[in-house]
């Protein structure tokens, strides 16, 4: 008998602390499968954030860091610059990456650090109990926007993938989702491509994954999935925003 499905080597065999209906578990698996398939596990280093995935080092079966809030791209920069032979990835949520860690992600991307960033966007602070994030949608009710996010007071949700795609350097930047089988297959392809590009020492790689937070959104998992499709997907459009092949050398740009 031939095994056609099993537990990825790059995941530890243990129960996670994630809430029912949360997509972190799926995204962890996609990352782990990608690392396995590319044969990178023994030289991969994960950098966990502060947020719901703070304990990611308990789930990924590879050497890991736990970074301070928002600084994972700086930690990854230090690790990768000191050991360019390692495969270094960060796994960050939207409070961590898009708020307190905005400087670190923008500059890591702008320096073209050859790391992979997995950015899980669920439009809310999960671990601290459902506060407004920079990615919270207009009108979305959270524990610190009890009347709905007022864009006059709190600005508009930041589209990080689009923002990073404006930077001049070579990069792979994609936004995916992982709440249906088809979208999960596409998300896997993007994540695997990001790790493969890092393996080939190509460029900065960034995959944003739209995620649900049934607990803090106050919904059932099915309602959360519907809410994501109806509200997040029109604002955060899925797709590849930048390919390394889009890079135009300075000499060409200057004619």
């Amino acid at each position, binding site marked *: 008998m031939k095994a056609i499905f099993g537990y990825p080597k790059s995941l530890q065999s243990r129960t996670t602390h994630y809430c029912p209906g949360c997509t972190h578990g799926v995204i962890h698996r996609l990352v782990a499968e990608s690392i396995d398939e590319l044969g990178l596990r023994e030289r991969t280093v994960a950098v966990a954030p502060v947020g719901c995935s703070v304990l990611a080092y308990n789930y990924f*079966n590879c050497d890991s*860091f736990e970074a301070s809030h928002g600084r994972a791209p700086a930690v990854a920069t230090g690790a990768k610059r000191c050991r360019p032979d390692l495969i270094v990835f960060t796994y960050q949520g939207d409070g961590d990456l898009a708020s307190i860690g905005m400087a670190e992600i923008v500059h890591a991307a702008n320096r073209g650090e050859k790391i992979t960033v997995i950015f899980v966007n669920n439009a809310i602070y999960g671990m601290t109990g459902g506060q407004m994030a920079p990615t919270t949608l207009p009108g979305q009710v959270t524990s610190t926007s009890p009347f709905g996010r007022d864009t006059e007071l709190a600005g508009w949700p930041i589209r990080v993938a689009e923002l990073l795609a404006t930077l001049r350097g070579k990069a792979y930047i994609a936004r995916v989702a992982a709440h249906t089988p088809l979208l999960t297959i596409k998300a896997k392809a993007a994540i695997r491509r990001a790790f493969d590009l890092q393996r080939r020492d190509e460029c900065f790689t960034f995959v944003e994954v739209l995620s649900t937070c049934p607990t803090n959104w106050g919904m059932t998992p099915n309602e959360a999935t519907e809410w994501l499709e109806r509200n997040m997907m029109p604002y955060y459009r899925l797709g590849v925003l930048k390919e390394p092949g889009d890079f135009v050398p300075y000499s060409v740009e200057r004619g």
Partner: protein
Amino acid sequence: MAKVLMKGNEAIGEAAIRAGCRNFFGYPITPQSEVPEYLSRRFPEVGGTYVQAESEVAAINMLYGGAGVGKRVLTTSSSPGISLMSEGISYIAACELPVVLVNIVRGGPGLGGILPAQSDYHQATRGIGHGDFRLLVLAPASVQEAVNLIYEAFDLADRYRNPVLILGDGMIGQMMEPVEFPPMRPLDSLPEKPWAATGMKDRPQNVINSLYLNEHELNAHNFKLKAKYDQVAREQVRFETWRCDGDLDVLVVAFGTMARIVKTALADFNAAGGRGGVFRPITLWPYPHEQLRETARRAKKVLVIEMNTGQMIDDVRMALGPDREVGFFGRTGGVVPTPDDVLAAIGEVTGKGAAR
């Protein structure tokens, strides 16, 4: 090796290279910017990597990543920049990562000024960041001593798996002095770091982490760190005594460049018939409390001189106890006391005039 004339900040960069450091992460700030400038042009010659971080916050976290994968890493900054690094230093200490930090102190608080000061003594010796931890703090008084201490700091950091801070000031950073460099450390002679996050092959997972959600585990972790700090305190106390033989009219306690100025003044004081000596702590943490207490027994008066409003004097009082009177003279904000200022302060304490 022959001596070369070199600016302090550049000599600090070269000393780090000699010690086997090939990765620097930092951010420009006066008066330390010659360190990143020097390393950005020198590193390519020795296969090193210079990364200019977007901020001191990013720089210290890059250091965390670099030390965590097992490399000798350095950052240098000046007072406000060190404040920004304080959270990251706490993480580094918690994770027991060996890093070397340099603070070329400028006048504070706030944006302060860019001239020499010693006003970060409390910050340096009381842990710098949140939580229960200590740094080894070394205070050079000359460019040569800065070179020697930087070279050794990497070994101390590795031995104790702890951050080591070199506390200089604008004078150390900016002045040129003749220096002799130690030999280039072969990279293959550096210590193994089996705890580092280098990819898990044929061994269990290594995690660089300071999160302990179980209070008993965190309690145990903190007492494990405490035991290490106690060991450092037993093994690494360093100080210099100058003209401290026999009975003294005055013992001046000063650190770093201030101690050099005090020596100049005391040479005149002694030439005029006074008997004065200098006690100069080289490790500001661990502080040489016992050695100072012993030395001060033979002194009629004890005078602390610092380029701040009185910070190290707390350690001196701790060493000497509440019954011993301790005089203080200080200037701040980049006002460097002259030998005449020091003589006047000594005269006030001893009642012995010693005009130059």
